[in-house]
Protein backbone atom coordinates (compact mmCIF):
# COMPACT_ATOMS: atom_id res chain seq x y z
CA UNK A 1 0.00 0.00 0.00
CA UNK A 2 1.26 3.48 -0.89
CA UNK A 3 0.70 6.38 1.51
CA UNK A 4 1.68 9.99 0.76
CA UNK A 5 2.22 12.22 3.83
CA UNK A 6 1.91 15.95 3.05
CA UNK A 7 2.95 18.43 5.73
CA UNK A 8 5.18 21.50 5.72
CA UNK A 9 6.70 20.35 9.03
CA UNK A 10 9.47 17.79 8.67
CA UNK A 11 8.99 16.92 12.35
CA UNK A 12 5.31 16.15 11.81
CA UNK A 13 6.04 14.06 8.72
CA UNK A 14 8.55 12.07 10.78
CA UNK A 15 6.02 11.65 13.59
CA UNK A 16 3.26 10.48 11.23
CA UNK A 17 5.64 8.08 9.50
CA UNK A 18 6.72 6.61 12.85
CA UNK A 19 3.13 6.38 14.09
CA UNK A 20 2.09 4.53 10.93
CA UNK A 21 4.94 2.08 11.42
CA UNK A 22 3.82 1.53 15.01
CA UNK A 23 0.23 1.14 13.87
CA UNK A 24 1.06 -1.96 11.83
CA UNK A 25 1.58 -0.14 8.55
CA UNK A 26 5.23 -1.10 8.65
CA UNK A 27 5.14 -2.58 5.17
CA UNK A 28 3.47 0.42 3.58
CA UNK A 29 5.41 2.43 1.04
CA UNK A 30 5.37 5.87 2.69
CA UNK A 31 6.47 8.91 0.73
CA UNK A 32 6.45 12.59 1.68
CA UNK A 33 5.73 16.02 0.22
CA UNK A 34 6.11 19.35 1.97
CA UNK A 35 3.25 21.25 0.37
CA UNK A 36 0.21 20.78 -1.83
CA UNK A 37 1.98 21.73 -5.06
CA UNK A 38 4.69 19.10 -4.55
CA UNK A 39 2.03 16.56 -3.56
CA UNK A 40 -0.07 17.34 -6.64
CA UNK A 41 2.83 16.53 -8.96
CA UNK A 42 3.61 13.36 -7.02
CA UNK A 43 -0.02 12.16 -7.08
CA UNK A 44 -0.35 12.84 -10.82
CA UNK A 45 2.77 10.85 -11.62
CA UNK A 46 2.19 7.99 -9.17
CA UNK A 47 -1.19 7.91 -7.38
CA UNK A 48 -0.99 6.59 -3.80
CA UNK A 49 -3.70 4.55 -2.05
CA UNK A 50 -4.06 7.24 0.58
CA UNK A 51 -3.04 10.86 1.05
CA UNK A 52 -2.60 12.17 4.62
CA UNK A 53 -2.37 15.96 4.39
CA UNK A 54 -2.11 18.95 6.65
CA UNK A 55 -4.83 21.56 6.08
CA UNK A 56 -2.79 24.74 6.38
CA UNK A 57 0.46 24.90 4.37
CA UNK A 58 2.40 27.44 2.30
CA UNK A 59 2.47 27.27 -1.54
CA UNK A 60 -0.69 25.17 -1.79
CA UNK A 61 -2.77 24.15 1.24
CA UNK A 62 -4.14 20.67 1.79
CA UNK A 63 -7.69 21.71 1.04
CA UNK A 64 -6.61 23.47 -2.18
CA UNK A 65 -4.81 20.26 -3.14
CA UNK A 66 -7.92 18.13 -2.59
CA UNK A 67 -10.15 20.59 -4.46
CA UNK A 68 -7.72 20.72 -7.38
CA UNK A 69 -7.52 16.91 -7.55
CA UNK A 70 -11.31 16.80 -7.53
CA UNK A 71 -11.53 19.40 -10.33
CA UNK A 72 -9.03 17.37 -12.37
CA UNK A 73 -11.02 14.17 -11.88
CA UNK A 74 -8.28 12.46 -9.83
CA UNK A 75 -9.89 9.98 -7.46
CA UNK A 76 -7.68 9.26 -4.45
CA UNK A 77 -8.51 8.41 -0.85
CA UNK A 78 -7.73 11.53 1.17
CA UNK A 79 -7.62 12.38 4.90
CA UNK A 80 -6.54 15.44 6.84
CA UNK A 81 -4.35 15.61 9.93
CA UNK A 82 -4.57 19.17 11.18
CA UNK A 83 -4.33 21.29 14.29
CA UNK A 84 -7.05 23.51 12.85
CA UNK A 85 -10.02 21.11 12.87
CA UNK A 86 -12.60 23.84 13.28
CA UNK A 87 -16.17 23.10 12.21
CA UNK A 88 -15.74 25.26 9.09
CA UNK A 89 -12.61 23.40 8.02
CA UNK A 90 -14.13 19.96 8.70
CA UNK A 91 -17.21 20.88 6.65
CA UNK A 92 -15.10 22.19 3.76
CA UNK A 93 -12.96 19.04 3.89
CA UNK A 94 -16.01 16.75 3.83
CA UNK A 95 -17.56 18.69 0.94
CA UNK A 96 -14.34 18.31 -1.02
CA UNK A 97 -14.44 14.54 -0.47
CA UNK A 98 -12.10 13.95 2.48
CA UNK A 99 -12.61 10.57 4.15
CA UNK A 100 -11.63 11.84 7.58
CA UNK A 101 -10.23 14.75 9.55
CA UNK A 102 -7.98 13.96 12.52
CA UNK A 103 -7.04 16.73 14.94
CA UNK A 104 -3.46 17.27 16.08
CA UNK A 105 -2.29 16.09 18.54
CA UNK A 106 -3.49 12.60 17.58
CA UNK A 107 -3.08 9.21 19.16
CA UNK A 108 -1.80 6.11 17.41
CA UNK A 109 -5.30 4.65 17.79
CA UNK A 110 -6.92 7.69 16.11
CA UNK A 111 -4.61 7.37 13.13
CA UNK A 112 -4.89 3.60 12.84
CA UNK A 113 -8.70 3.66 12.97
CA UNK A 114 -8.97 6.39 10.32
CA UNK A 115 -6.40 4.84 7.99
CA UNK A 116 -7.96 1.38 8.38
CA UNK A 117 -11.38 2.67 7.39
CA UNK A 118 -10.07 4.71 4.48
CA UNK A 119 -7.98 1.88 3.04
CA UNK A 120 -10.27 -1.07 3.70
CA UNK A 121 -9.04 -3.96 1.55
CA UNK A 122 -5.88 -2.23 0.35
CA UNK A 123 -3.52 -3.04 3.22
CA UNK A 124 -2.20 -6.20 1.68
CA UNK A 125 -2.28 -5.07 -1.90
CA UNK A 126 1.08 -4.39 -3.59
Amino acid sequence: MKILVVDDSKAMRALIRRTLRGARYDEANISEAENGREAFDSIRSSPPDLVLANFNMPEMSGIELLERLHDDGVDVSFGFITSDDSEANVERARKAGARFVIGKPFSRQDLRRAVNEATEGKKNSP
Partner: protein
Amino acid sequence: MSAEIPTAKLHEITKNVWSMVLGFRIQPVKFDAGKAGAQEFVLGKVTISGTWQGAVTLGCSTNLARRAAAAMFGKAPAEADAGEIRDALGELTNMVGGNYKTLLKGDCKLSIPNVTDTVPFGQVNPAPPEHEWFECEGGMVLVNVLKGTPR
Protein backbone atom coordinates in the same frame (compact mmCIF):
# COMPACT_ATOMS: atom_id res chain seq x y z
CA MET B 1 -3.11 37.02 29.12
CA SER B 2 -5.81 38.89 27.25
CA ALA B 3 -8.51 36.72 25.69
CA GLU B 4 -12.01 35.31 26.17
CA ILE B 5 -10.90 31.70 26.59
CA PRO B 6 -10.15 30.78 30.23
CA THR B 7 -6.49 30.35 31.18
CA ALA B 8 -7.29 26.83 32.40
CA LYS B 9 -8.20 25.89 28.84
CA LEU B 10 -4.85 27.14 27.56
CA HIS B 11 -3.13 25.06 30.24
CA GLU B 12 -5.13 22.01 29.17
CA ILE B 13 -4.23 22.48 25.50
CA THR B 14 -0.54 22.94 26.31
CA LYS B 15 -0.38 19.89 28.56
CA ASN B 16 -2.26 17.82 26.02
CA VAL B 17 0.06 18.74 23.15
CA TRP B 18 3.23 18.14 25.19
CA SER B 19 2.09 14.83 26.60
CA MET B 20 0.54 13.37 23.43
CA VAL B 21 3.21 14.48 20.97
CA LEU B 22 6.33 14.26 23.11
CA GLY B 23 5.32 12.04 26.02
CA PHE B 24 6.64 14.74 28.37
CA ARG B 25 5.01 15.61 31.67
CA ILE B 26 4.47 19.36 32.00
CA GLN B 27 3.36 21.30 35.08
CA PRO B 28 2.20 24.91 35.39
CA VAL B 29 4.40 27.01 37.68
CA LYS B 30 4.49 30.60 38.90
CA PHE B 31 6.74 32.92 36.93
CA ASP B 32 10.16 33.01 38.56
CA ALA B 33 12.52 35.59 37.06
CA GLY B 34 15.44 34.07 38.96
CA LYS B 35 14.93 30.70 37.32
CA ALA B 36 14.06 31.95 33.86
CA GLY B 37 16.51 34.85 33.70
CA ALA B 38 19.57 32.76 32.94
CA GLN B 39 17.94 30.89 30.08
CA GLU B 40 17.72 31.44 26.35
CA PHE B 41 14.50 30.52 24.57
CA VAL B 42 13.22 29.27 21.24
CA LEU B 43 9.98 31.15 20.49
CA GLY B 44 7.25 30.16 18.05
CA LYS B 45 4.33 32.40 17.12
CA VAL B 46 1.16 31.97 15.11
CA THR B 47 -1.29 34.75 14.40
CA ILE B 48 -5.05 34.39 14.19
CA SER B 49 -6.96 36.77 11.97
CA GLY B 50 -10.66 37.23 11.27
CA THR B 51 -13.48 37.81 13.74
CA TRP B 52 -10.86 37.34 16.49
CA GLN B 53 -7.44 38.92 16.02
CA GLY B 54 -4.40 37.99 18.02
CA ALA B 55 -1.34 35.82 18.43
CA VAL B 56 -0.36 32.70 20.31
CA THR B 57 3.27 32.41 21.39
CA LEU B 58 4.87 29.19 22.60
CA GLY B 59 8.44 29.09 23.76
CA CYS B 60 10.79 26.86 25.60
CA SER B 61 14.31 26.92 26.95
CA THR B 62 16.88 25.86 24.37
CA ASN B 63 17.84 22.55 25.99
CA LEU B 64 14.21 21.52 26.26
CA ALA B 65 13.59 22.60 22.65
CA ARG B 66 16.38 20.26 21.58
CA ARG B 67 14.86 17.39 23.58
CA ALA B 68 11.42 18.11 22.11
CA ALA B 69 12.82 18.05 18.57
CA ALA B 70 14.66 14.81 19.31
CA ALA B 71 11.42 13.23 20.56
CA MET B 72 9.54 14.28 17.41
CA PHE B 73 12.26 13.09 15.04
CA GLY B 74 12.91 9.92 17.02
CA LYS B 75 16.61 10.59 17.53
CA ALA B 76 19.03 11.44 20.33
CA PRO B 77 19.02 15.10 21.52
CA ALA B 78 22.64 15.59 20.45
CA GLU B 79 21.67 14.65 16.88
CA ALA B 80 18.92 17.29 16.49
CA ASP B 81 20.16 20.22 14.38
CA ALA B 82 19.05 23.86 14.54
CA GLY B 83 16.65 23.48 11.60
CA GLU B 84 14.97 20.47 13.19
CA ILE B 85 14.62 22.32 16.51
CA ARG B 86 12.96 25.29 14.76
CA ASP B 87 10.71 22.96 12.78
CA ALA B 88 9.62 21.03 15.89
CA LEU B 89 8.93 24.16 17.92
CA GLY B 90 6.98 25.59 14.98
CA GLU B 91 4.80 22.49 14.82
CA LEU B 92 4.18 22.50 18.58
CA THR B 93 3.21 26.19 18.30
CA ASN B 94 0.93 25.37 15.39
CA MET B 95 -0.83 22.72 17.49
CA VAL B 96 -1.30 24.94 20.54
CA GLY B 97 -2.45 27.87 18.36
CA GLY B 98 -4.69 25.68 16.20
CA ASN B 99 -6.35 24.05 19.20
CA TYR B 100 -6.87 27.50 20.73
CA LYS B 101 -8.38 28.79 17.47
CA THR B 102 -10.98 26.00 17.37
CA LEU B 103 -12.38 27.38 20.66
CA LEU B 104 -12.95 30.84 19.20
CA LYS B 105 -16.28 31.86 17.77
CA GLY B 106 -16.60 33.13 14.21
CA ASP B 107 -14.51 32.83 11.10
CA CYS B 108 -10.75 32.94 11.75
CA LYS B 109 -7.60 31.99 9.90
CA LEU B 110 -4.43 30.56 11.43
CA SER B 111 -1.05 31.67 10.10
CA ILE B 112 1.97 29.49 9.38
CA PRO B 113 4.22 29.47 12.49
CA ASN B 114 7.17 31.81 12.74
CA VAL B 115 10.08 30.64 14.94
CA THR B 116 12.97 32.62 16.42
CA ASP B 117 15.75 30.79 18.21
CA THR B 118 18.23 31.75 20.93
CA VAL B 119 16.16 34.63 22.31
CA PRO B 120 17.66 35.87 25.61
CA PHE B 121 15.22 36.14 28.52
CA GLY B 122 15.37 39.96 28.38
CA GLN B 123 14.19 39.98 24.75
CA VAL B 124 11.21 37.64 25.17
CA ASN B 125 8.17 39.43 23.76
CA PRO B 126 5.54 39.85 25.21
CA ALA B 127 7.38 40.47 28.51
CA PRO B 128 7.98 37.26 30.50
CA PRO B 129 5.50 38.00 33.35
CA GLU B 130 2.69 38.14 30.75
CA HIS B 131 3.16 34.46 29.88
CA GLU B 132 1.82 31.30 31.43
CA TRP B 133 4.82 29.30 32.66
CA PHE B 134 5.41 25.56 32.90
CA GLU B 135 8.22 23.28 33.97
CA CYS B 136 9.00 20.25 31.87
CA GLU B 137 11.87 17.76 31.95
CA GLY B 138 14.05 20.25 33.80
CA GLY B 139 13.36 23.02 31.27
CA MET B 140 10.86 25.86 31.00
CA VAL B 141 7.89 26.39 28.70
CA LEU B 142 6.02 29.65 28.22
CA VAL B 143 2.71 30.30 26.49
CA ASN B 144 0.96 33.56 25.76
CA VAL B 145 -2.23 34.60 24.02
CA LEU B 146 -2.32 38.22 23.02
CA LYS B 147 -5.54 39.70 21.72
CA GLY B 148 -5.28 42.51 19.19
CA THR B 149 -3.47 43.16 15.96
CA PRO B 150 -0.10 41.43 16.30
CA ARG B 151 3.02 43.59 16.00
